[in-house]
C-alpha cells in the first residue's frame, strides 16, 4: 500500500486551472521531491493533500487523493482535523511566521500531543524528547522560550518537532530551507534525512532548489504550469533529464557549478577601500550605534568583478552602500573614482554619483509602480541633462542590450515578470554609463532559470562596457561563477579573500569559508 496516491488532481480558481491533472505516488518510507519554479502549482498540490486550500480555490470532483489506500475525507471536517497533525504533518517555509508569537514553544508542541491520550506529565517528557530528537540543545529550557528568542534554524527544528509530535506517516515539507542561511540549510537537510530514515516516514519535499531535492529525494516529479512534466528516480532525472524543461533546470544549476572562465584582465583602479567601519544609527534617542562593518579593505579595478559573499547580517550590503556613497563611514576611507570619502566628510559630488550605480535585490520595490518603464528609464536621462528628444533612442538601445523589446517601454512594472523587471533595473543603471556597478543580491529573488540568464547578461555587459562590478550574494555557486575575486564576510568583517576559482581549495581557506563550502549541498548527488 502506498502512503500517498494522487490521481488527476485539478485545482481551479473559477475557470483557470492552477493545477491541471497531477498524478503521483509516494511509497511508504520513501521521499518524493516535487520540483518547480514559482507558479508551478507545487505548493497548492501540497495544500490540497491536507485540504487547506485558500478560499476561492476548488478541487475538481474527478480528483482523488488517497492516504494509505483510504480516500481523503474532505467532506468531514472532523475527520480531516483528526488526520492533520497526526497522520499527515506539514512544515512550511518561514518558521518565524509559522510559530505563534504569543505562545511558548513547549505549549505549541503540546497542542498536538493534547489531542492524544497522554496525561500532562507524560506529555512534558515527550516534548523534551521531541526537541532532543531534532538536535536542539537544552530542550527543557528551550520549551519555555518564545519563538522570537530562537534563531531561524532553531525555529525550523521546532517546526519539525511539532510535525513529529503526532507520529505522522506522511510528512510534507514545503520549501523547508529556503528562508534559512546556507550553513543552516545543510543541517536541516541532514536532519530531515535522518528523521526519515529513523522513523520510516513517507516524505514529500516541495522545493525549487535542485540541490535540496537531490539530497533528500529518492524520486522526483518536475512541475511546470500546473502539470507534471517528468517523473522518475532522482539520480536519473538529475543526471539525464528527458524533458527540455527539466534539462533547462538542471543545466542552470550545472552552469553555475562549472569552472568559470579565465579571470578578466585588470584595468585601472576604480575603488579603493581602506579599513572602513560603518555604523547603523541606534534605535530611539538614546540607542547606541551598531557597528555593521569593521576593518574592511578592498580594491576594485576596471573590467573586474569582486564578489562579496556572506550570510544575512554579515554586513555585505552595508559595505556596498558605503562604497556607493549612500552611507556615511565611521572609520577609514574610501577612494571612489578619484574622490576620497572620509568619516564626517562631504558627501559624494553629484557628477560622481552617476558613475557608480546600484541594482537592488527586490525588483518589486525598485521600480515606482506609478511610472511606465519609459518614464522610469527616462528619469536618469533627464537628471543627466539629456534633452528629451534623445530619450527614446537611448531607451530602445539599452532595452535591447538587456534582452528586452522596445515595446516593453510602454508597460508598467506590474505587467512584467520578476526577471524582466530586474532587466529593466539593470538597463536603468546602464543608462548612467557607470564605471562601477554594484549588484546587491540581484538574482536572489528570481527563479533559477532566470537567475542564470541574468548572470550571463551581466557578464556580457561587463565585457562590452568594461565597468567594474561589485557583486553581493549569499549563494556560493552564484558568487563564484560571476566573480574574479571573492571576499568572504562574516559578522561585519572580511574573513577571507581569494580568487574565485580558489574557493574550493579548502586547505588554504579560513575556517568560516570552509564551513560555507561544506554546507553547500552537492547538487547532483543524493
Amino acid at each position, binding site marked *: 500500500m502506498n502512503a500517498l496516491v494522487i490521481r488527476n488532481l485539478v485545482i481551479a480558481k473559477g475557470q483557470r486551472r492552477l493545477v491541471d491533472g497531477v498524478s503521483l505516488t509516494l511509497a511508504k518510507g520513501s521521499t518524493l521531491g516535487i520540483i518547480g519554479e514559482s507558479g508551478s502549482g507545487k505548493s497548492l498540490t501540497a495544500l490540497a493533500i491536507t485540504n487547506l486550500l485558500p478560499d476561492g480555490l476548488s478541487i475538481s470532483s474527478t480528483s482523488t487523493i488517497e492516504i494509505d489506500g483510504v480516500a481523503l475525507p474532505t467532506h468531514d471536517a472532523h475527520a480531516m482535523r483528526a488526520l492533520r497533525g497526526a497522520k499527515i504533518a506539514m512544515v512550511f517555509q518561514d518558521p518565524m511566521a*509559522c*510559530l505563534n*508569537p*504569543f505562545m511558548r514553544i513547549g505549549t505549541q508542541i503540546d497542542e*498536538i500531543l493534547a489531542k492524544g491520550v497522554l496525561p500532562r506529565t507524560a506529555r512534558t517528557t515527550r516534548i523534551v524528547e521531541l526537541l532532543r530528537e531534532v538536535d536542539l540543545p537544552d530542550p527543557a529550557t528551550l520549551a519555555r522560550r518564545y519563538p*522570537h528568542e530562537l534563531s531561524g534554524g532553531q525555529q525550523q527544528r521546532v517546526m519539525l518537532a511539532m510535525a513529529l509530535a503526532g507520529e505522522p506517516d506522511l510528512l510534507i515539507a514545503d520549501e523547508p530551507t529556503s528562508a534559512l542561511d546556507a550553513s543552516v540549510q545543510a543541517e536541516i537537510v541532514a536532519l530531515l534525512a535522518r528523521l526519515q530514515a529513523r522513523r520510516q516516514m513517507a516524505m514529500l519535499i516541495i522545493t525549487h532548489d535542485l540541490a535540496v531535492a537531490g539530497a533528500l529525494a529518492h524520486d522526483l516529479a518536475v512541475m511546470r504550469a500546473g502539470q507534471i512534466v517528468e517523473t522518475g528516480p532522482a539520480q536519473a532525472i538529475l543526471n539525464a533529464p528527458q524533458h527540455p524543461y527539466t534539462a533547462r533546470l538542471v543545466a542552470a544549476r550545472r552552469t553555475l557549478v562549472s569552472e568559470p572562465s579565465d579571470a578578466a584582465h585588470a584595468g585601472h583602479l576604480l575603488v579603493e577601500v581602506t579599513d572602513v567601519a560603518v555604523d547603523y544609527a541606534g534605535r530611539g534617542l538614546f540607542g547606541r550605534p551598531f557597528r555593521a562593518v569593521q576593518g574592511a579593505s578592498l580594491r576594485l579595478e576596471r573590467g573586474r568583478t569582486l564578489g562579496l559573499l556572506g550570510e544575512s547580517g554579515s554586513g555585505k550590503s552595508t559595505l556596498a552602500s558605503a562604497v556607493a556613497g549612500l552611507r556615511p563611514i565611521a572609520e577609514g576611507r574610501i577612494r571612489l573614482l578619484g574622490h576620497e570619502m572620509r568619516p564626517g566628510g562631504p558627501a559624494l559630488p553629484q557628477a560622481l554619483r552617476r558613475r557608480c550605480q546600484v541594482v537592488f535585490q527586490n525588483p518589486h520595490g525598485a521600480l515606482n509602480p506609478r511610472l511606465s518603464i519609459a518614464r522610469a528609464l527616462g528619469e536618469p536621462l533627464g537628471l543627466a541633462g539629456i534633452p528629451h528628444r534623445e530619450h527614446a533612442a537611448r531607451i530602445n538601445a539599452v532595452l535591447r542590450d538587456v534582452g528586452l523589446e522596445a515595446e516593453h517601454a510602454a508597460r508598467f512594472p506590474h505587467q512584467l515578470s520578476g526577471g524582466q523587471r530586474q532587466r529593466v533595473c539593470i538597463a536603468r543603471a546602464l543608462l548612467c554609463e557607470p564605471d562601477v556597478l554594484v549588484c546587491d543580491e540581484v538574482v536572489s529573488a528570481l527563479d533559477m532559470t532566470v537567475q542564470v540568464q541574468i548572470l550571463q547578461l551581466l557578464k556580457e555587459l561587463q565585457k562590452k562596457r568594461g565597468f567594474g562590478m561589485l557583486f553581493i550574494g549569499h549563494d556560493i555557486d552564484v558568487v563564484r561563477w560571476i566573480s574574479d575575486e571573492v571576499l568572504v564576510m562574516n559578522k561585519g568583517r572580511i574573513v577571507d579573500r581569494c580568487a574565485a576559482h580558489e574557493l574550493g581549495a579548502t586547505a588554504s581557506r579560513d575556517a568560516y569559508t570552509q564551513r560555507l563550502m561544506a554546507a553547500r549541498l552537492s547538487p547532483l548527488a543524493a
Partner: protein
Amino acid sequence: MKFLANAGFDLGRMLIQALGIVVIVFLLARVVPGDVVDLKAIEGDLSASQQQEMRTELGLDQPLIVQFGQWSWRALHGDFGDSIRFGRPVGGMVRTALPVTLVFAGLSFVLALVLAIGIAVGAVMTGSRVLRSLVEIVNIWSIALPTFCIGVVGILIFSVWLHWLPVVGSMLLPILIIGIDGAGQIVKPLYEELREAATSTHVRTAHAKGLSPWRITVRHLLPTAVPVALALSGLVLAGLIAGTLTMEVLFGLPGLGSLMLNAIQGRDYPVIQAAILVTAIGLVVVNALTDLLHRMIDPRLSR
C-alpha cells in the same frame, strides 16, 4: 529589564503629556481678556481701587509663572479654588459630578468593547453575511451619525412618543447610544485585523496541526487582535469624552460634562480648569494603562 525600562519611558512620556495639558489649560484660561475681577466689577460695581485690592488678594497681579505655581500647588492638594458663580469649593463640585460620569463612561466603554469584539469575532469565525454587513453598518453608524442627533431622535421616539423612558435622568438610552458609537469605531479595524490574522501563516500552521476551530480562534487568532483592540480603545475613549459631554447635557445627567458646559457658558474659570484637568489626566492614565497592558501581553515587547 527591558520591560521595566520601556514601561518607565512610557510613564514618563505620559506624565509629560499630562503636564503639557495642564499648562495648556492654564494658559488658555488666562489668555482670555478679562478675568474674574472684571466680571465681579461689572456685577458689583467696584471701583478701580477695590478692583486692584481684589486682584492682589486673589494673587492675580503676580507673574504668570507664579500664578501657575500657586494654582498647581493647590491643585495637587485637591484645592481648586472656589466657583465664581456658586461660591462653593470647586473640588467638592467635581467630586460630586465625577462618579456620575465614571459610571456612564465606564458602562458605555464596556458595552462598546463587548459589542465590537463580539461582532468582529463572530463575523470572522462564521463568515456569515449578516454579521459582516453588521460590521459595515455599525461602522458607518458611528462615522456618519453624531451621537447628539441620535440622542435627540432617541428621546423623540422613546420618551416623547412611546413614553417608555423619562425625558431626563435615565442613563439607559445614552449608554446604549455611546456604546454603539464606540463599538462602531473599533469594529471595522478589528474585523480587518482578525481577517488578516486568519490568513496569516501561523494560523495556517495551526490548521495544519489539526486543532479545533475553537482553539485556533481563541489561542491563535485572538491574541493577535488584542494589541489592536487595545490601541483602538484609546480612540474609543477619546470619542467617549465628546459623547459624554453632549449626552449629559441632552439627557440632563449631573456629571462632569454638564458641570463643564455650564461653567463654560458662565465663564466660571476655576470650574472649567478643574473639570478639564480631571478629564485630561484621566485620559492620560487610561492610555498609560492600555500601553502597559499591551506590553504585558505581547512577549515580543517585554523580553
